[in-house]
């Protein structure tokens, strides 16, 4: 079996056992990237020398007994939204083209501390605003399962590199589904942890109250192991949770007998839901029942407002978070003569830098947010959004009083064609229908593969659990994986 077909933990085991070195594994993936990335455009920045250097460091530290993580020496792909000192971090935006931060994100630092080896930066929608990885300044990424289709977004690159076997593990970020939806489209697992479980320090902010770093992998064991490395309190992130980090692998083997699983009626009966996906959810239901879980129907009655709420809250925060990109201190700058409306050359410079440096979707959301926060509109939009957000969070709370986990679809459809929705933002926004709730409520949520549809495209289902109940979420998913609900599968490899 070739290395890329192994799980990350198996690779880690072989490295630890001395059967293969981290350097060899890293070189293997770098070679696959070299050969396969051009087809899918999933990595936007690779520095082989640096990766190999880090791999050699890992080998040395392993030999010295300094590394204990089962993922020590294992390569990992990093979304282009996480800062790494001296490494280009551009969020897929012209605004940050060539920007190399002078510091490293806590999440990435934890990977490095564990002896994991960054392979490079993966493509994404500009500033994580999108669901198709079509708005990146580096061009569109393609779905390894069908090159005419999107790998999803915004962490499209992160999911595509897994499906193509260019990396054994990935980390992305999820603000409204940006880890789970691409995972679903590419046939891999993707976790959005509880808000605050993983530090946001060094994660370039899109919507601060929703953003969360999350791992993507082929198996639940790999997700659990990677989460173990990433999770924990960070004094540099005021919103990071102080709660103790459990041993995520410990509960994976527990049987599901007596567990209550709620199927979200508003999700499975939604008119926009693809038939094949509905069937996949039903298959999940049956399998869970077979594993001893009790299946009940639950309601998230405010589901119909979730997209609208999300598109008030997220752009409002984004409009503030993206104000720092003004061409003054770093990043893209365009100087121009003061045009109409600009009071000074300075205003003109800021205005031009932002007009040219940001793409259309980013500007649309900045304007949406600016409008929602403006005096006279604040109450009707931003404040109303916050109120409905509370109702949506209450929906989850009520549901979790009845059941232990929620089951439903991740997306209304399988991976759509490139260009299919890029001219219709509302259609694109509606794709987030089933994923934004977990971000608004702050609960952990996991996308797992569910086989392929008749077109050969990956299907997926979503599991959600109460705040900080990642162990339960992973336990359920792992039992399903063991029972054969899905298996590690790479897209047809033409390398």
């Amino acid at each position, binding site marked *: 079996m070739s290395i890329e077909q192994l799980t990350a933990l198996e690779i880690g085991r072989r490295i630890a056992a001395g059967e293969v070195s981290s350097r060899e594994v890293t070189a293997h993936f770098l070679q696959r990237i070299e050969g396969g990335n051009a087809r899918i455009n999933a990595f936007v920045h690779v520095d082989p020398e640096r990766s190999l250097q880090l791999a050699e460091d890992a080998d040395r530290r392993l030999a010295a007994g300094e590394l204990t993580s089962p993922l020590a020496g294992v390569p990992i792909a990093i979304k282009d939204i996480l800062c790494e000192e001296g490494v280009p971090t551009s969020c897929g935006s012209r605004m940050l083209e060539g920007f190399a931060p002078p510091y490293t994100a806590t999440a990435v630092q934890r990977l490095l501390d564990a002896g994991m080896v960054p392979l490079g930066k993966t493509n994404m929608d500009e500033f994580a605003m999108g669901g198709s990885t079509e708005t990146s300044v580096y061009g569109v990424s393609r779905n390894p399962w069908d090159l005419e289709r999107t790998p999803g977004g915004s962490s499209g690159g992160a999911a595509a590199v897994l499906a193509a076997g260019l990396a054994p593990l990935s980390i992305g970020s999820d603000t409204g589904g940006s880890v789970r939806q691409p995972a679903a489209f590419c046939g891999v697992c993707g976790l959005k942890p509880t808000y605050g479980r993983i530090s946001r320090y060094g994660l370039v902010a899109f919507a601060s109250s929703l953003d969360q770093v999350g791992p993507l992998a082929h198996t639940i064991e790999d997700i659990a192991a990677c989460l173990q490395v990433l999770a924990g309190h960070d004094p540099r992130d005021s919103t990071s949770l102080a709660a103790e980090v459990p041993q995520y692998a410990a509960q994976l083997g527990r049987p599901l007998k007596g567990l209550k699983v709620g199927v979200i009626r508003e999700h499975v009966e939604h008119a926009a839901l693809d038939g094949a996906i509905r069937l996949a959810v039903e298959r999940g239901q049956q399998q869970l029942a077979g594993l001893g879980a009790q299946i009940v129907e639950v309601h998230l009655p405010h589901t119909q407002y979730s997209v609208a709420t999300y598109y008030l809250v997220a752009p409002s925060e984004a409009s503030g978070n993206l104000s*720092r*990109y003004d061409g*003054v201190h770093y990043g893209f700058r365009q100087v121009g003569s003061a045009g109409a409306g600009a009071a000074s050359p300075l205003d003109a410079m800021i205005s031009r830098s932002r007009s040219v440096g940001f793409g259309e979707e980013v500007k649309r959301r900045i304007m949406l947010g600016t409008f929602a*926060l403006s*005096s006279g509109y604040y109450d009707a939009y931003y404040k109303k959004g916050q109120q409905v957000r509370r109702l949506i969070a209450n929906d989850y709370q009520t549901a979790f009083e009845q059941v232990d986990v929620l089951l439903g679809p991740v997306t209304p459809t399988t991976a759509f064609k490139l260009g299919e929705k890029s001219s219709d933002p509302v259609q694109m926004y509606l794709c987030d229908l089933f994923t934004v709730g977990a971000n608004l409520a702050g609960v952990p949520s996991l996308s797992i593969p569910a086989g392929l549809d008749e077109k050969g495209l990956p299907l997926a289902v979503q599991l959600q659990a109460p705040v900080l109940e990642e162990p339960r979420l992973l336990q359920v998913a792992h039992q399903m994986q063991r029972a054969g609900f899905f298996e590690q599968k790479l897209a047809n490899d033409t390398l």
Partner: protein
Amino acid sequence: MTTAPYKIVIGLEVHVQLSTESKLFCSCETTFGAPPNTQICPVCLGLPGALPVLNRRAVELAIRTGLALHCEIAPETKWDRKNYFYPDLPKGYQISQFDQPICGPGYLDFPDPERDGESLRVRLIRAHLEEDAGKSMHDEAAGRADSRIDLNRTGTPLLEIVSEPDLRSAPAAKAFLTELRLLLTYLGVSDCNMQEGSLRADANVNLHIDKEGRTLATPIVEVKNLNSFRAVERALNYETQRQYDAWLKTGQEMGQAPKQTRGWDDAAGVTVPQREKEESSDYRYFPDPDLVPLHIAAEQLQSLGQGGGQRLEGLPAALRRELETEHGLKPYDADVIVSQGRGVVEYFQSAVSAGAVAKRVSSWIQQDVLRTLNETGGSIETFPVGAARLAELLQAIETGELDNSRGKDVFQYWLTQGVSELSVAKTALGIASVDRGELEALCRELLDENPKVVEQVREGNLKGLGSLIGAAKKKNPNADPKLVRELCQQLIEAL
């Protein structure tokens, strides 16, 4: 002024830089005068992904100030983003407090500058914490139109104290600020250095004019750039006259013209209109999602109010009262001593408790100690003549062991030759008591030598006695001037 047909109405906004070691949301130092852009980090530079973490010390200082200003301290407060573009504001927003300031309504009493012994009260609306911006330096000389930015100050904690428009004269405004600065200095929450920008005041000013039995108000003008107490007084006096003249010319009342911002030009002695920051009317405040709301427990208030307690007790108003009622000082004298700061007050208290008479201590501090400190630029803490030593000297004067003028000689001797035992100084200066017979002989001698003076005194012109005293001191430095005067007068009368 009393005959002016109008009343000036003034409200002040005072920005106080809190003396924390590090900035409000990062660990950068706050030392003034460091080379540009040397006290910066990803957080205060607003780099992508960097997050603020609250400096608890700043909160403590704000609470302590609030308690001393009789403010209600909010049990829960939060952080809001104030959005605007400016090159010295790297994030594109300032973290401030919008609708839940840490300190609610309070007041400050201060000595009425126009009525000795009376006090005035200004009500305070609120005091909130916020981060400072950086400094833009525009170098438009030599046609270069260069702008440079120093971000050392960015993120420094400020407490913005906002008063009700309770002030009715420029001297009162100055007195209010003087008292506020004194209080803050006593609290140790700020160094209040106006030149370095640690204390900055803006004034909202308008006039209430009586016209045909009706009181009308002129448009409110915000006067900025008040960099010294003198500037405050001058600017307000100027602005009063300017607004009255403007009203006579235009007849404009409040509401008929927008609120104007004017800057004080100290050199020219005028206020000039300032360019309004664009969109200044809509800062689109919203809660900062990177920070969590702050809960202030009752116990914390207790410990800051009482535990740090001694410091909250010995504040200027209470000390003035103590000096007046317990030590019998006049309000003016008590104010002079208290205004010098805690060190001088403690010096006074020590000298008195060492046995010296309070009024004599007060007069020596004001005439000799403070004058010396002014001349040498020294501080009371390192003043060579300690309180106990001064008390010993003043007691010797009190008992007649030496006269007041020889006392001053001793004081000077100590300052120039080093402090010694009183007896040592007396010997060195040849101070010895002169017996009455000896002194009488001296006086007779003087009268013989100065027949003209004798003549004048006999005619009732006592001024001449002064020159006799001077002559006596020349003949014998230990001659007690009081006694010389007495004896000469008696001898002349007896002639």
